[in-house]
């Protein structure tokens, strides 16, 4: 008499939205363009970045660390750029400090 299927527990809803912006924050657009531009100049094969991105997504999803997509993209980009030997260690940190000498957000969040 009852043909209902047993419901799957906690089936997550798909976040449907129309007319969303391509990038939600300016930094998303910038880190996207940095990776695309380095690729455009032949600095790496796209598959290399894709692998880093997949690793980042699967690692954070498996530990339940909910991140926005471009946070994963940024983490993968940092690893990519590190692997390309373009920067010296600490250069970005120094620039962060130079941009916001009085900003303690980053320091506090490391505690």
């Amino acid at each position, binding site marked *: 008499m009852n043909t209902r299927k047993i419901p*799957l527990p906690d*089936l*997550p*809803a*798909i*976040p*449907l*939205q129309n007319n*969303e*912006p*391509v*990038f939600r*924050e*300016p*930094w998303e*657009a*910038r*880190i*996207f*363009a*940095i990776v*695309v*531009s*380095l*690729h*455009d100049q032949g*600095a790496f094969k*796209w*598959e290399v970045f*894709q*692998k880093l*991105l*997949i690793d980042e*997504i*699967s690692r954070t*999803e498996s530990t339940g660390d909910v991140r926005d*997509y471009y*946070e994963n993209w*940024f983490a993968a*980009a*940092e690893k990519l*750029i590190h692997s390309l030997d*373009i*920067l010296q260690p600490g*250069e*970005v*940190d120094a*620039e*962060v400090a*130079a*941009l*916001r000498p009085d*900003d303690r*957000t*980053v320091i*506090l*969040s490391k505690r």
Partner: protein
Amino acid sequence: MSDRGHDHSHDEEERGIALRVKALERVLIAKGAVNADALDQFVDAYETKIGPRNGAMVVARAWTDPAYQKRLLEDGVAAIGEFGFSGIEGDHLRVIENTDETHNVVVCTLCSCYPWPVLGLPPVWYKSPPYRSRIVREPRAVLAEFGVELPESKNIRVWDSTADLRYMILPQRPDGTEDLEEEALADLVTRDGMIGTALV
């Protein structure tokens, strides 16, 4: 109270990442690894030029030109190249045709592989964990959530994109459009129709 606390930490995190991206960009520019104008151009291209309108033109051509449709299904990369569409995430592209028997839908279960040159960058839902896991397990139910109710007799095939191969769906041409020209037909084609989460 707890809501406020959450919002607060989220905001700080975003300020942190925005600041780090800005610093990274400045260092890369100073080293000549990237330049600001090129970055602006890439952002502009993906925000305003490279989008589903490209794919819609391809679909409309396929609907009106059987020889083009054949080329498109046999070698997607070459056929979209006839329009000048190419680039990242487009060099391994396969076009799959919807038929009376089978409806096709695309996912990337591992990340977000997507045919950029014809569809632009993927929507948020395409990159979301629920879509990526559920469309494979229960495609009929997920399609219903998108408003696509298919008869039980229709097969559904889910194509999982990879770094090596990305997919675009060629929707069925709607009935009653025999008199429409290519341009008007392209207006009917939606992004979701080319992902397979909508009918055209």
